């Protein structure tokens, strides 16, 4: 049984106002999992994510990363193990060149110059940023700025990656590139946690899904099981992707009703049609 990469034990957090952002949330994400955290804005997704790298400390409860309680450790130390990508690339870009921006984290964490050189080159290559290495990142278009911040995160190669809505505002092509790179990291054993609103993405890639609602963990599990819970999803105003909704509509005709992708749906359909004809 793989050790949980991220474990929250009855964590609560309250911002200055009276409303609690997170109430007694307990969850575990196993190492090497690709997890998705979904829920409406205000449900506590970002709070949960920030508890995982020490940006916020729980009022109650404990947070363990890779088996260790992170309570006493400064954020800069936790950053070695947990990489965090903020939603808006413009909330971190500052450097005079893309190279400098991508190397920022590595320099902070004290990597040697040769290692920094190698990792930055690699990260730039992964995202097609080599032509822009000397450009100021702030002057690039939105899609490229997003890629610069992702490259900056990738260069650190942390065991756990948390990304807050990395695909919002990206076109589909850029989204697929990003997901492809994440899949490579995931394949190499990294734990990936994605906060997202994109249900097609969740259906396509996530192995484990957590649904938050009003500061509580409503349910967690594999996407297939969660998307089947139609009343629960309706209650929190979430919709499964169109293909899953279609499959659910055709359940009465014998289809399994839990398809997550177009290919799966077709296989299910072909099987049912074959049976109906025989």
């Amino acid at each position, binding site marked *: 049984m793989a050790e949980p990469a991220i474990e929250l034990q009855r964590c609560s957090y309250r911002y200055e106002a009276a409303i609690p952002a997170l109430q007694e949330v307990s969850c575990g994400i196993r190492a090497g999992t690709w997890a998705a955290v979904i829920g409406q804005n205000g449900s506590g997704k970002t709070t949960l994510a920030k508890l995982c790298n020490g940006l916020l400390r729980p009022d109650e409860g404990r947070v363990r990363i890779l088996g260790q309680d992170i309570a006493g450790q400064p954020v800069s130390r936790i950053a070695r193990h947990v990489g965090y990508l903020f939603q808006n690339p413009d909330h971190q870009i500052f450097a005079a060149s893309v190279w400098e921006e991508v190397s920022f984290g590595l320099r902070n964490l004290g990597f040697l110059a040769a290692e920094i050189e190698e990792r930055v080159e690699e990260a730039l290559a992964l995202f097609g940023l080599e032509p822009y290495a000397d450009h100021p990142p702030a002057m690039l278009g939105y*899609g490229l700025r997003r890629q610069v911040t992702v490259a900056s995160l990738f260069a650190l190669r942390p065991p756990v990656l948390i990304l807050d809505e990395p695909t*919002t*505002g990206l076109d589909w092509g850029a989204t697929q590139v990003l997901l492809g790179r994440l899949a490579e990291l995931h394949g190499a054993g990294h734990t990936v946690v994605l906060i997202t609103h994109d249900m*097609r993405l969740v259906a396509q890639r996530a192995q484990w899904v957590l649904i938050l609602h009003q500061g509580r963990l409503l349910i967690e599990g594999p996407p297939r099981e969660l998307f089947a819970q139609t009343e629960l999803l309706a209650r929190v105003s979430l919709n499964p*992707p*169109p*293909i899953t909704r*279609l499959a659910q509509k055709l359940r009465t005709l014998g*289809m399994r009703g839990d398809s997550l992708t177009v*290919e799966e749906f077709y296989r299910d359909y072909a099987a049912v049609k074959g049976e109906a004809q025989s």
Partner: protein
Amino acid sequence: MRSLWEALFGVGPLEPVITIQNLHYAYPPLTAGAEAPPVLKGVSLSLSSGECLALLGPTGAGKSTLCLTLNGIIPHLTGGTFRGEVWVAGQDTKESSPGELSQRVGVVFQDPESQLFNMTVEDEVAFGPESLALPPNEIEARIDEALDMMAIADLRHRSPLALSGGQKQRVALAAMLAMRPQVLVLDEPATSLDPAGKASVLEAILRLRRETGMAILWVTQDTDQVPLVADRVLLLAEGRILLEGKPKGVFAQAEELRGRGLALPQMCELARHFNEREGTDYGWLRVEEAAHDLAEAIGG
């Protein structure tokens, strides 16, 4: 409702309210003397009263730039090199100021935070009419009208800062509606919102379609929603219009769309999957269409 529209604006339904002919545009270069790459390279399109046109395209295609040419911000506030013609509600945008054009075209931008700058929703919706120097009782009437149309009358005295993303965008829409534009340009209004916010904005657009004769230019990345709302679809890539037509026709051109980095609506992908394997000719865009056809296919 439509005849009232004609009486107010003198433009009947189905008459072009936007005409763009051979538009070329490049922003001014960052350093003097440098070459500025053109962002729009010969765009032509027309949009009629009552029509909703969905504008798709990869990031950097020039969609936001195109939106800004419609209310005169380009070229009047941005400078740059502008060639071609843009006619909005009978006015040439080169000749009219953005202030004048704002009475004919409303633009709602993607970021809910940075387009609301007043202390209350009421003040926000009043700002446009106040800028047009309308008399106070007219301003009040327009505020009521706009808030009702967007179903946010209960938010009248709230601060825009305290609202949800979906509510903020509805306030932005109301603020534009108070100018009584004939054209509404929506530049990815729901992209940065959560699912509830996206649904709220979609509902608002549908309501505008039903209850007004406005022409709507809707820039969006969410192709699943397009068939629910749009009459026509345009694909803009690298400053040119590559595809144009009804949703079914445009989404049938899968290779072109995928090659440009755009997703098909998932039902459209499913239809292609079926057509390749079963030799059928499905053209589904919506879940209901597919459910209907497949139920027949299995059952019958």
